[in-house]
């Protein structure tokens, strides 16, 4: 296992380097640069001002030189400062990452718990009224874009019934508190969880149906074991193995955020930060965020594989 772990970690290094080079190249190839963010075409344009801004951000240097400078600093844990706000990139990412983790983990945890529970429920009742109804609803949940359900929820719960706030992470009138944050979290996390509920319900249902019809479950039933024992000791644990994979693959979502929900609920997360960074050609921020996201994806994949080995005794890593 340790050898496997070491091999995977070593293999991750060239992948990470390749990701940074690709992202940097793509940003370089895109038209415009951060100077365009400072020069509003509706205000008088000045070539001198444009040049001054380019020199200030080092954009007058060749691209390879800038990349090497960035990479050298990144290896020392220095990701530079945002071109737009001047804040250290890692500080910005840290703050927004925390906000995104709060939102996405709440949505995902709720979605996984409810989705898996519903998936087990309908998996044991194939073709029943509940199965048909919830499966249909899951299609709606998967198909409905988050920004539509978000706008609908805002209209109903915020404008019409005035139950929940329209956005933000806290009230502007009171001191910050856990309760206040939870209150602001309910609606955006609830909307985001709909997609997870639908997805995990579908996966769990499918997995349950596969396992229920397998030989060893049929043998357990034939042996006279109680139905409850057959379900909870033999069926459900095995049905959850593919679900673990799905959870692992969803981990990167925790850090990339949800740009639509963040925008309409004014939740300052990684999604909107990335959008602002790309729109403003904020190279240090783009590079910093992509490095963090790449690290998370690589780490999540590794953890998923390791978890598989722990859960399934048939899987061994050398």
């Amino acid at each position, binding site marked *: 296992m340790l050898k496997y772990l070491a091999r995977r970690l070593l293999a991750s290094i060239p992948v990470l380097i390749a990701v940074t080079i690709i992202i940097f190249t793509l940003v370089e190839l*895109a*038209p*415009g*640069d951060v*100077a*365009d963010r*400072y*020069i*509003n*075409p*509706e*205000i*008088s*344009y*000045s*070539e001198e*001002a*444009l040049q*001054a*801004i380019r020199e*200030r951000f080092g954009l007058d240097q060749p691209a390879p030189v800038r990349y090497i400078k960035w990479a050298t600093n990144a290896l020392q844990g220095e990701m530079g*400062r945002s071109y737009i*706000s*001047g*804040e250290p990139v890692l500080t910005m990412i840290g*703050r*927004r990452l925390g*906000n995104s983790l709060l939102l996405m983990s709440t949505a995902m945890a709720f979605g996984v718990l409810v989705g898996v529970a519903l998936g087990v429920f309908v998996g044991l009742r194939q073709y029943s009224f509940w199965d048909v109804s919830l499966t249909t609803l899951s299609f709606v949940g998967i198909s409905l874009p988050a920004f539509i359900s978000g706008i609908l929820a*805002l*209209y109903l719960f*915020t*404008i019409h019934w*005035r139950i929940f*706030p*329209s*956005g*933000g*992470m*806290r009230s*502007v*009138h009171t001191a910050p508190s856990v309760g206040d944050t939870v209150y602001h979290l309910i609606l955006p996390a609830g909307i985001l969880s709909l997609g997870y509920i639908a997805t995990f319900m579908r996966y769990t249902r499918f997995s349950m149906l596969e396992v229920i019809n397998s030989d060893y479950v049929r043998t357990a039933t034939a042996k006279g074991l109680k139905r409850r024992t057959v379900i909870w000791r033999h069926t459900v644990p095995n049905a959850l193995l593919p679900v673990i994979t799905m959870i692992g693959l969803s981990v990167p979502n925790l850090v990339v955020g949800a740009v639509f929900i*963040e*925008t*309409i*609920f*004014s939740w*300052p997360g990684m999604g*909107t930060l990335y959008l602002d960074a790309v*729109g403003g*050609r904020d190279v240090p921020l783009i590079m910093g965020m992509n490095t963090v996201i790449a690290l998370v994806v690589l780490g999540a994949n590794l953890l998923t594989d390791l978890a598989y080995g722990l859960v399934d005794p048939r899987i061994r890593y050398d």
Partner: protein
Amino acid sequence: MKKLLIFVTALAMLLALPASALAQGGGGTLVGGFDVGPGGLSQTHPWIQTAGNTWLIKIWSPLVSYNEDISGLAPQLATEWSSNDDSTVWTFNLREGVVWHDGEPFTADDVRFTFEFVLSPGSTATAPVGMAGIKTLLGAEAFSAGEAESIEGINVIDDLTIELTLAVPDPRFPYKLVEAYILPEHAIDFPPEDIATAEWWFSTPIGTGPFMHDEFVRDQFWAVVPNPNYWNGAPKLDRLINRYFEDETAATLALEAGEIQFTYVSGDVALRLAENDNYVIYQGPSGVTNYLIFNMREERFQDVRVRQAFLYAIDREAIAEIVLGGTATVVPCLAAYPAMWPEEYNDYAYNPDLARQLLEEAGWSQDEPIEIVTYYDSQFHADAMAAMQQFLADVGIETVPRVDAEGYNSYFYTGEGWSISYRGLGHTAGSYPFQYYETGGYPDAVGDAKTLSGASYPELDELIAQARSEADPDAYMGLLQDICAFQNENAIEGSLWTAIRFAATTNDVQDFYWFPGPAGGPYEDHAELWTVAAE
């Protein structure tokens, strides 16, 4: 009798309470999206700002700002200003009795300090308008290069008088100071290299504005409280909060949910809210003129009949009224404000037959559709461009719109890579973009004229030269009108319309004022008078 006396006393106290409360604040808390929409810029600060001035002037003050409707200037830290005959030496008399938020007195030394601070070698100040103004000070260039100990053109006469000498004459110099916020020499604790990044701006800012810093929560809001020493009287509000929104839709939803009392709103939202008694709508010209600019380096656009045909072919009034829902006003030239229009001009009223005739006379032909490139990516402009495309097609001009929001600046100003562009230009009388039109104004542009369009007009050059040096405000306005008349008669551009911009407050907000100033102004909005009625 005793009971009556008690009753009258109690009643008198009750009636006196609101008045006394208002005298000490008591005007409630106003929460708004002050950086929503054009002119707003979240979480910016002086000397790097490219917009967001409506909020910044709540905390900091320049020497002068725009007046209420951007038609002129209003005194701020300076109460009077005058120049010598050739507009090279400007004298500013400063307001007496002004103190910084920490109680320290404001003096002319703070003005000197501010300009030298932001022009210091290594300074990271980038605010285009503010920097453009003070860079014209005599000796500023040498100072910024580290070749001088101070700026030769700054002369502090006494605590309340400062004399600024320019390297070149500029009758409109004060206009260039509206975004030049004055900083406290005694309270700045970071070097010029940290202007762009210092936490001071958001943690312990000191200004002379009507409000003082209270609480800043990054990405969420900025709250300020009244400055009891403000020269126009302590603000009546208890608290003013600028909430940040990623999107104007989110701000509109917050307004309708009752969580905020003010925000910029788009035209369609304004029309809807205007029918609801719970809201008050404010509107004004955006100051940005939308127009079609023809690349005159291409021979096909050099014939004035072709350019006039474009104008006759497009029913601008119909687009403004129907497509844009009445949220735009047709203009005769680049100028967005009627004060800059001549008394008589060609309105180029919709006339497709005349357009076809002009095109025929000019021998118009095209092998492929002409691309009209723009950086606007909003539905407002997409609708307008679609309508224009149809009108032009009706007279035989085939066009195709192309949106290039990110890369536009990288090629447009060189004069290459575009044939026609749909764009906007914001300006005031004091910031007229002469360099766009005068020969040699864009040295890096291709072609001999070195203008934005590639065309050169000697008569226009003469008018611009006169306007640049004209110090008398009335005569200057007359010259701007003459420039407008020339632009209109020669259709040097396809001037279209200026958008009307809107904002909304809930009906409990009183004595409020808002105007769509370019980059948010700053303009005189009398924020010290705003109140929110108690429920």
